[in-house]
């Protein structure tokens, strides 16, 4: 791209033409006019935009989003989080798992007993799975909605109350598993045992969404060892009385039911792919979304 015609002098003259008193090819008043125009124009455009967004907000319900087809069926997520679904630690080196236990501490803070004392906000929903508790229509008409208490103690060895390291220091890592919150979502327990692996049959109960963790690969089955499940009444599932969720506005203090999974006998030094699945009629899995109704995690426990 030759540019012979516009030599340096041309550029300088373009930036400031002292003869015509032009800066970048425009005089002062010309700049003023065009800038004023654009200020008005963009002001007007911004006004339109803000107006339309206001209309959007006015027509949107404060309690429930218009569409939920993308967020349901729910995801199954776990704490601690894993980078690229991998977790690796040395059980006699606290530094390698410090981050995880901090995350779990932080996550479980809401579940401390002292935070669930307000009777206006919390109620006792029993210690055994019961059917869902409906709390009226999804709006302010019935006043605030109470939520069920969830006792951190139920998480047993994984509650962090007895073992501050959630088993990590012994090479028996805990994962806290939850079903992602969805407003008004009512999970349905499995009707049959057909799709559930035999080992999990014992955890199938009415009013409970069971989960089960197993090695992904057949040959790793032996290396996985014993898996312990902690939850309400040691059920290893999500009790239905915590559902439905009434949304952030009506239940800001909502505690979703948790299940803790502890791998107590992992083979040290070998990487294990473990898959945990929740089972229910309206819990679906998806090849692309590896956190929908299930999750996978690779665990490697090392020794120094």
């Amino acid at each position, binding site marked *: *791209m030759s*540019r012979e015609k516009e030599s340096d002098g041309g550029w300088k003259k373009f930036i400031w033409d002292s003869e015509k008193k032009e800066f970048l*090819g425009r005089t002062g008043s010309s700049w003023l*006019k*065009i800038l004023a*125009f*654009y200020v008005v*124009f*963009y002001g007007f*455009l911004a006004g*339109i*935009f803000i107006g*339309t*967004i206001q209309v*959007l*907000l006015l027509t*949107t319900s404060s*309690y*429930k*989003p*218009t*569409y*939920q087809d*993308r*967020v349901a069926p*729910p*995801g199954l*997520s776990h704490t601690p*989080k*894993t*980078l*690229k*679904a991998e977790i690796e630690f040395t059980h006699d080196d606290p530094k390698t798992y410090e981050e995880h236990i901090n995350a779990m501490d932080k996550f479980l803070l809401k579940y401390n007993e002292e935070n669930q004392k307000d009777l206006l906000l919390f109620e006792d929903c029993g210690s055994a799975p019961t059917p869902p508790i409906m709390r009226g229509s999804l709006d302010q008409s019935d006043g605030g909605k109470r939520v069920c208490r969830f006792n951190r103690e139920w998480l047993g060895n994984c509650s962090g109350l007895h073992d501050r390291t959630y088993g990590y220091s012994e090479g028996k890592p805990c994962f806290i598993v*939850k079903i*992602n*919150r*969805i*407003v008004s979502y009512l999970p349905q327990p499995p009707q049959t045992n057909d799709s559930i692996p035999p080992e999990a049959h014992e955890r199938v109960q009415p009013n409970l969404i069971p989960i089960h963790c197993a090695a992904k690969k057949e040959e790793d089955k032996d290396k996985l060892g014993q898996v312990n499940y902690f939850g309400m009444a040691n059920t290893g599932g999500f009790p239905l009385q915590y559902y439905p*969720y009434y*949304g*952030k*506005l009506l*239940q*800001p203090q*909502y505690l979703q039911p948790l299940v803790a999974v502890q791998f107590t006998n992992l083979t040290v030094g070998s990487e294990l792919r473990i898959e945990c699945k929740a089972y229910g009629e309206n819990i679906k899995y*998806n090849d*692309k*979304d*590896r*956190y*929908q109704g299930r*999750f996978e995690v690779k665990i490697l426990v090392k020794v120094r």
Partner: protein
Amino acid sequence: MGNREGRDQYELDATSEHGGKKNDKKGKKGKKDRNLDELKKEVDLDDHKLTLDELHQKYGTDLSRGLTVARAAEILLCDGPNCLTPPPTTPEWVKFCKQMFGGFCMLLWIGSILCFFAYGIQAAVDDEPVADNLYLGIVLAAVVIITGCFSYYQEAKSSKIMESFKNMVPQQALVIRDGEKNSINAEEVVVGDLVEVKGGDRIPADLRIISSNGCKVDNSSLTGESEPQTRTPEFSNENPLETRNIAFYSTSCVEGTACGIVIKTGDHTVMGRIATLASGLEVGQTPLSIEIEHFIHIITGVAVFLGVSFFILSLILGYSWLEAIVFLIGIIVANVPEGLLATVTVCLTLTAKRMAHKNCLVKNLEAVETLGSTSTICSDKTGTLTQNRMTVAHMWFDNQIHEADTTENQSGATFDKSSSTWAALARVAGLCNRAVFQAAQESVPILKRGVAGDASESALLKCIELCCGSVTAMRDKNPKIEEIPFNSTNKYQLSIHRNANPSESRYLLVMKGAPERILDRCNTILIQGKEQPLDDEMKDAFQNAYLELGGLGERVLGFCHMPLPDDQFPEGFKFDVDDLNFPTEKLCFVGLMAMIDPPRAAVPDAVSKCRSAGIKVIMVTGDHPITAKAIAKGVGIISEGNETVEDIAARLNIPVGEVNPRDAKACVIHGGKLKDMTSDQLDDLLKHHTEIVFARTSPQQKLIIVEGFQRQGAIVAVTGDGVNDSPALKKADIGVAMGISGSDVSKQAADMILLDDNFASIVTGVEEGRLIFDNLKKSIAYTLTSNIPEITPFLFFIIASIPLALGTVTILCIDLGTDMLPAISLAYEGPESDIMKRQPRNPKIDKLVNERLISMAYGQFGMISAVGAFFTYFVILADNGFLPMRLLGIRIEWEDKSLNDLEDSYGQQWTYEQRKVIEFTCQTAFFISVVIVQWAILIICKTRKNSVFQQGMKNNVLTLGLFEETALAAFLSYCPGMDVALRMYPLKPTWWVCALPFAVIVFIYDEIRKVIIRRSPGCWVEKETYY
């Protein structure tokens, strides 16, 4: 034959102005390449001044036996073959590379390389880099390669048509060597060879004629003279181009025979010098490529400005250096309009096709537009403006000038044929005529038939054939008894026929020739079929008619006859043409007939169209000033009422020197005068005269004229067919050669070829060129508009940390998918007003893409479009649970793959994949919103000033484009499998309509703007927004 006197006058004229001024010319310009300068000088030959003896000495040729074979072989070895060195052809791969790396392509290549670079950075930093930049780089490269191949293919196609023009038949020449006549390949002719030529031959080299027999050559391809020129051994003019004793290479011998010594061969011939001059000229950029370069500067400026500002901004916002660099590259690349190269190429191709349909073949795609910017057309006369065919234009009989029909299709005026004088005149013209139609042409229209014979006799033959029926039948009825052919001493032609008319005498003497000579031989004149004495009054009338016709640049012939009295010339009388035993004086004058090479029918109209389109039409011809002026007046190059200095002088009856040259708008410049002008004088001349005719110009002068116009900033088109035009054709911004009559050299030098040789096709070219310029503007405005909604998502991704609203794939879907056909369809858009009524664009001010276009497309339309699309984006996210406020600053969490419980505004938790799905749904919706606003933009861009309601929706391709882009958008969104292939997701119907109000807003906004521009021209709005 015929009007010798007239011809002599012309030449005398030429001589007087030429005399002795040749030497001043040399060394005028020093700055240019010396070699080229050498070629630009006038032909320097002195062989025509030499006597035969001197020639013999100079060339060592025996004037009867020729060279010896051995000597000829020696010279051949030394000088090389007698052929023109073909212009250096560009190798195919260079042409291909030019398509690949020219102007616009470089922009895309740089974009592509930047993409790969950015991907490299990402790959080095991240284990799992986002492949978007890689794909974008590949797509950009693919776009360039595909478009490059396409335009290469297009140009190869038109150059193939060019190839087919080439005449591959090897020429033969008859040379005398060692006293023997040999027919050898013309390439083997050497300097000093003795060559014989006869009617129909091409002259094999520059010849000095040593003997001739009625030889005439057609010099039109070299000098532009339409009449065949006599060649004799006599030295008649200082100027080698005008002297009669030199015949030039590649001109043709029309009739007679001649023998001459070869004085120059190959590239040294006059023709060769011109061809070398043409191929040595450097060609400037086409106006369009200058425009595109300017456009690239603007685009790059905007891109770099945006990129650098956001680079700094992202550093301030706390991004790392590498991230900021990736952003910088991303923004710069996002500014590249990927589809525009293809759009522009297709638009130009479409126009080139349309022009080819209208008989304008364009060699170089970018030249399509050049005619549209043309402000001056320098047209050759012969063959371009005229039919290149002598035709009877006027007759004078019964003391009255009658106009004959000269139009090509015989639609013109006719005259009263009832007078018996006309019957007599027709009989004389038909009988005293040696021209005959060539055989087997009954189905061909008379005017198009081939004729064997002299040009003026052919003209007479055709005229009589048209008016009075078969001339052959007439000749059969009145068989020729005896004849005296034309010779230059008599200046008449005479024949004696048996008279078929029983009421008249047995024998009829008919004669034609130079009018004044014929008149001298007459003492009576035929008026209304009655012989009347030729008195002084009649002679004055004749004189006036002769002058008037001569002043029209016509070649006038006089006709007379005499019925030979039966008593003196009984049946079987032996006529003796040597003794002249019959009267050749005291004849009866019948009338005059005047011939001219008439202008083509469509030319006057075309010239006036060019005029009203603000284009200067200049005639540059090698022909004589009088003829040139007459034709110029005939076609309107000198318009009615405009006078030259000479005209004013004649009207006011004062010497030419006393007329103020500023008073005359028109002027006729003789080549001899031009030769002595300095370039300042020439500039002055070109500036102050609107209607100029250059006559008797040499090829070098044509070049100087073109350069003169270009110095004034004009964009010059040159039309021509001869070799003499080729340097000018090459130098011109657009050279237009003639497809039928044009010489190979001229076609090679030209950028465009008129397949029907019709000047009127140029008007079509101008119209198409201007239209495509306007439509390209519209197309670019349309394409650039979508750039803003394509860039803003990335900008907001960086500064507001919201999820990316439009991804690379969707950007490419817009640029290379939905925007494509609508942008191309704008090439089919009709003109808004009469584009042939406005001035040609000023290449300094009227740019293809100016800051107003950018301001409109980017600053206004694009912004509204982006706002509309962002609104859709926020609607979808809000509908799914993410209200706008939640989105601000969400980027880090949103992009965190390990975070699978991201909370929305309602407390719902989203896995990574779930939110990616709505992100991609948003991108699909954003894409569709852009398409919807682009509906309005497309309708807006149809016009720059008019309302759509004035313009109408007549452009069906555009309507199709609207449906096509919608259908494509819907297909991309709803076709199963798209979620996997392109990550595009189906939309809910309500999401389609979100952008509609913005389409309406932008439409209304622009209609208001156009109303203001129409109502108050020149107002601030027009100055700032009329692109």
